């Protein structure tokens, strides 16, 4: 269902974006977000380019149904694993209505818990599949992009592909990508989201990934847009038996940046590692939603976020490890480290563990703080003022992004952004 609403001025208001699966108190204003997209943006499909590395050209497929077909086929394999019954499920409510059980013996599930039981008992793989930003935002992004680019890596093959989105003012440029990494294949996918100019524009990616048994998929996204841009980066990932997906998100630019990722670890021994690095400066907004759903046995997930917030920037990071019934032997870990480089920043973090299985391990940790007094003292002894010390951490974040940039073009974009935060940054790392 597309609930996208356009208002009288032609602007688009997306609601329920990056919604946490299990919400918390509404007054904290963390559960989800609304995204206002200005009127008058023109879709610009030409701003999106797909660049297979030499020898990888044949992975660009014309089979538009490849992803859906793969998901349906997987669904048939996993149908037999549906949970037979759960406390508080629909069967219990039928028994309640018939007066067969004491109402006080049936747990009063929350909305999220009711939904989780439906995923465990009733929903097929394709019905349960979702992206991190939610159906409304995903539908909007897909409506902007042209036909999705389908990358289909044959069994046992390896490929490297780069997708570039180069936004310009007054346009909306979105890469729609379906990835199907067949059994024992490997894919390195780089997504470069960039936009330059001082007038509003939108850049984004809407990605679905099917990592078949034994496959290896690496996705590196670097976002380096100017402040006038909105960035929407949405992904849904299905991970089959023994497959391993690595995701790296580097968010440096855009006035408002929204990143969503949902992963379904359905196959046994499936694994996902998500590494996020972000920088917020001036009035920038950083909004993340990660949902990792463990359904297979012995599945593993890790989420590691590292960020620096400066100026009057705002950030929300929602990270959910969902250990569902039947995922015995699974482990999920989540960690965030945030450096607050200015007293005007607003940093919100909500690291969630949902657990419906006992034979699992889930843990998370967060460290939020400024440069410690002892660190400042150490640096002060070496002639650095507190302001210079904090600038050093920001510079380090940018330098790290520049040094690890996947190509020269991305590196140049990182340096361009670095100059807006730290004048002379380009010369510093040259």
């Amino acid at each position, binding site marked *: 269902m597309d609930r996208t609403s356009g208002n009288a001025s032609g602007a688009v208001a997306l609601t329920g974006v990056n919604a946490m699966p*299990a*919400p*918390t*108190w*509404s007054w*904290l204003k*963390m*559960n989800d977000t609304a995204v206002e997209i200005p009127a008058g943006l023109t879709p610009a499909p030409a701003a999106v380019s797909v660049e297979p590395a030499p020898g990888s050209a044949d992975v660009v497929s014309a089979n538009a149904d490849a992803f859906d077909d793969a998901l349906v086929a997987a669904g048939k394999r996993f149908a037999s694993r549906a949970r037979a019954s*759960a*406390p*508080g499920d629909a069967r219990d409510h039928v028994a309640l209505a018939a007066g067969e059980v*004491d*109402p*006080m*013996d*049936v*747990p*009063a*599930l*929350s*909305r999220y*818990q*009711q939904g989780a039981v439906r995923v465990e008992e009733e929903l097929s793989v394709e019905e349960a599949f979702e992206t991190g930003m939610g159906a409304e935002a995903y539908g909007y992004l897909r409506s902007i992009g042209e036909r999705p680019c389908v990358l289909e890596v044959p069994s046992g093959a390896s490929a490297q592909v780069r997708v570039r989105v180069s936004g310009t003012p007054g346009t909306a440029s979105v890469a729609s990508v379906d990835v199907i990494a067949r059994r024992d294949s490997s894919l390195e996918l780089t997504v470069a989201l960039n936009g330059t100019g001082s007038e509003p524009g939108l850049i984004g990616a809407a990605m679905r990934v099917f990592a078949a048994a034994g496959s290896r998929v690496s996705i590196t996204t670097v976002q380096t847009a100017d402040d006038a841009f909105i960035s929407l980066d949405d992904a849904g990932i299905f991970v089959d038996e023994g497959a391993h997906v690595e995701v790296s998100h580097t968010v440096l630019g855009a006035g408002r940046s929204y990143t969503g990722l949902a992963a379904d670890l359905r196959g046994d021994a499936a694994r996902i590692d998500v590494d996020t690095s972000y920088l917020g400066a001036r009035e920038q907004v950083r909004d993340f939603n990660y949902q990792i759903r463990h359904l297979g046995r012995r599945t593993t997930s890790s989420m590691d976020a590292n960020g620096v917030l400066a100026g009057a920037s705002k950030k929300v990071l929602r990270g959910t490890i969902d*250990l569902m*019934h039947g995922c*015995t032997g699974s482990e999920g870990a989540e960690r965030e480290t945030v450096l*607050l480089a*200015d*007293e005007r*920043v*607003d*940093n*919100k*973090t*909500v*690291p*969630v*563990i*949902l*657990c*419906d*299985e*006992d*034979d*699992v*391990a*889930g*843990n*998370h*940790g*967060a*460290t*939020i*703080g*400024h440069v*410690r*007094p002892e660190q400042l003292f150490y640096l002060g002894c070496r002639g650095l003022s507190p302001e210079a010390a904090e600038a050093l951490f920001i510079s380090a974040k940018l330098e790290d992004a520049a040094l690890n940039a996947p190509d020269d073009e991305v590196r140049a974009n990182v340096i361009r952004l670095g100059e807006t935060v730290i004048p002379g940054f380009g010369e510093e790392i040259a």
Partner: protein
Amino acid sequence: MAKKRSEVADIDRSLYDFTYGEEGFERLDAGLTPDIVREISERKEEPAWMLDFRLKSLEIYLKKSGPTWGPDISGLDMDNIVTYVKPNTDQRSDWESVPDDIKDTFERLGIPEAERSYLAGVGAQYDSELVYHNMQDTAAKMGIVYSGIEEALHEPKWEALIRERFMTLIPPTDHKFAALHGAVWSGGSFVYVPAGTKLDFPLQSYFRLNAKGAGQFEHTLIIVEDDADLHFIEGCSAPKYNVANLHAGAVELFVGRRAHLRYSTIENWSKNMYNLNTKRARVEEAGEIEWISGSFGSHVGYLYPMSILAGRRAKSSFTGITFAGAGQNLDTGCKVVLAAPETTATVETKGISKGGGIQTFRSSIVATPEATGSAATVSCSSLMLDADSRSDTIPAMDIRAKNVDIGHEATIGRIGDDKIFYLMSRGISEEEARTMIVNGFASPVSKELPLEYAVEMNNLIKLEMEGAVG
């Protein structure tokens, strides 16, 4: 291969699950109307401002919607809840004059014995009214006031103070059940500890909800003035019925400069209870609030004691344990607002779920721009005792201050087979080994309780653990 599990047996809660009739009791009609609110106020001969407050609260209640983020409360039909049940006695100050059935109830719960042994004062509420209240002469001579809040409201000396503070920390606009409380509150305690006064022995209030299909809405207001010190203990229980009962009490705590208040609670409501309780403390400069909280009963629980650290170097600590068994969905945790420089907060919680029970740890740490140099640490651990149970952890942090240091750690898992094996290899049965491990898991909470309450908590764990071998 699937691990072998044995059935979880029913537990014996006869210590708490006993009832007496309501002969001679007065029950208002079920439901919630302005006339019922007026009648409650009239019976208590309240000042006019309180009736106005109640009626405004009722308006707010009728306009507000219920929570959408927590356990389902659609099974709670306010049209079927009796908001006021008056027992067949007035408040007494000696146990002998309390009617036999009510006295027997509290004796079985060990309250008079506790009073004789180690308490400086006791209040006992039965359904909607206090039936017993007493404080030792030594405490009274120190200038400490411990009385029913309604009794204090009729003292001109205290009415002004109560009016100034009543439902200012928990305004009726806060949430739907705070508004409900504002409309129909009844009973509860008022404590005033003068500046510089330190009470060596705790005060205790015990709340017993005996009536089927009724609500209990007691209000506790405690003021600990500058440099004073108090330990207050709250206990709650009820027999089990097959219809919903409701507890929507409110606790407001004011902790003065350099003052210290420890607030300990063992909530052991029956498993047909909707426990929608609200507790909040405001702490001034260098003051300290300590929350010790054990949540064992209830069909549904929403309980998040909140600390507002309003003065420089104010401190809060929250130590809590929640044990959810079959049919229970307990959503518990705490809230902290760091609202002044150099404030500190620590949160340590343990959650245990068993037999299909659900426990959720939910918290918020908010640092306002004024909280420069503040620090908070949150540590929560959850133990799953079987695969049918559920344990969720939803901590939120909103940090807007300079030079703050916020740490958060959480773990969820089950009892390791290696630990069970170790204990069994030394001749301990599996059930006993599991109970020992769970007691050890809960020890950060029990060690903070007075000995008698720690024993009660360990007994509750033992009751919950019976048959939990799997």
